[in-house]
């Protein structure tokens, strides 16, 4: 499943996770500072989704925590429709509904406080979460398994348990 990236010392230093924030597009310089946090050491790494009920029985998902206190998360149902027009600007209402409600992505900075995992959302596919602090409870890492509970899922409803497995 994993391809091994070619080592390229002069292009990129791959000894640690590299995280870059968008600062320009088409040459316009824009940069906003980022918060710094102190991540728990074990959390740093890349995780794939094992279980996330809201995204179906075989969800797709990747979660990366870097050593600088940044994270990036994406979850999707595996059965979402492709845009029939092969152009997302010409999607049908049902396609937007299925894709918008069957996926979520966000990134920002994280920290661990006791058994809480705190995810500060800088930017999300669900705009209501932008700038919010998402607190996940019952956070544990046992072996290569990371778990937490989302007490207020973006899709509404009751608390949901999520399970992730470390990518090696």
């Amino acid at each position, binding site marked *: 499943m*994993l*391809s*091994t*990236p*070619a080592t390229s010392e002069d*292009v*990129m230093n*791959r*000894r*640690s*996770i*590299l*995280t*870059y*924030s*968008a*600062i*320009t*597009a*088409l*040459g*316009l310089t*824009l*940069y906003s500072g980022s918060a710094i946090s102190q991540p728990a050491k074990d959390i740093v790494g*890349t995780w794939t989704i094992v279980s996330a009920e809201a995204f179906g029985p075989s969800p*797709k*998902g*990747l979660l*990366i925590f870097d050593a600088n206190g*940044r994270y*990036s998360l*994406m979850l*999707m149902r595996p059965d979402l*429709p*492709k*845009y029939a027009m*092969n152009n*997302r*600007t010409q*999607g049908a*209402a049902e396609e*937007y*509904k299925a*894709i*918008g*409600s069957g*996926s979520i*992505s966000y*990134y920002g900075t994280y920290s661990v406080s006791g058994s809480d995992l705190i995810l500060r959302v800088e*930017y999300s*596919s*669900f*705009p209501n979460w*932008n700038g919010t602090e998402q607190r996940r409870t019952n956070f544990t890492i046992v072996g290569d398994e990371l778990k937490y509970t989302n007490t207020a899922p*973006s*899709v*509404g*409803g009751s608390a949901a348990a999520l399970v992730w497995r470390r*990518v*090696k």
Partner: protein
Amino acid sequence: MPSDSNPKGIVVLDATGRYASVQGRAERPKFKSASRLQLEATADEMKAAILGFGANMGTWSVNEADKTLIRKYEIALIPNNDGLERKDTVTLSGDDLRLVQTAANGARSEAVYRRSK
């Protein structure tokens, strides 16, 4: 992303060969409802939220010969892009990472990222 003077975005390249790319417009309207599933009156909101946002994750590698960053999509917010292989010319100068893609029709898109510390 389309031309945007105020982009939001992140690219994470990890040591296991996985990457995450998330980007979009800074200004996107919030949903009136607190839940993403209260959709009865929010078809337009859903469309607006989707069109200003892009995300994909998968595996990455670098081709030294032509200085390109290759990202193979495993999870894409545009489901049509599952399995897509995207190739960008990459230059790293100091803490800036510049990615340039030239489409088949010659259109050039460029994004610059700064290393997060």
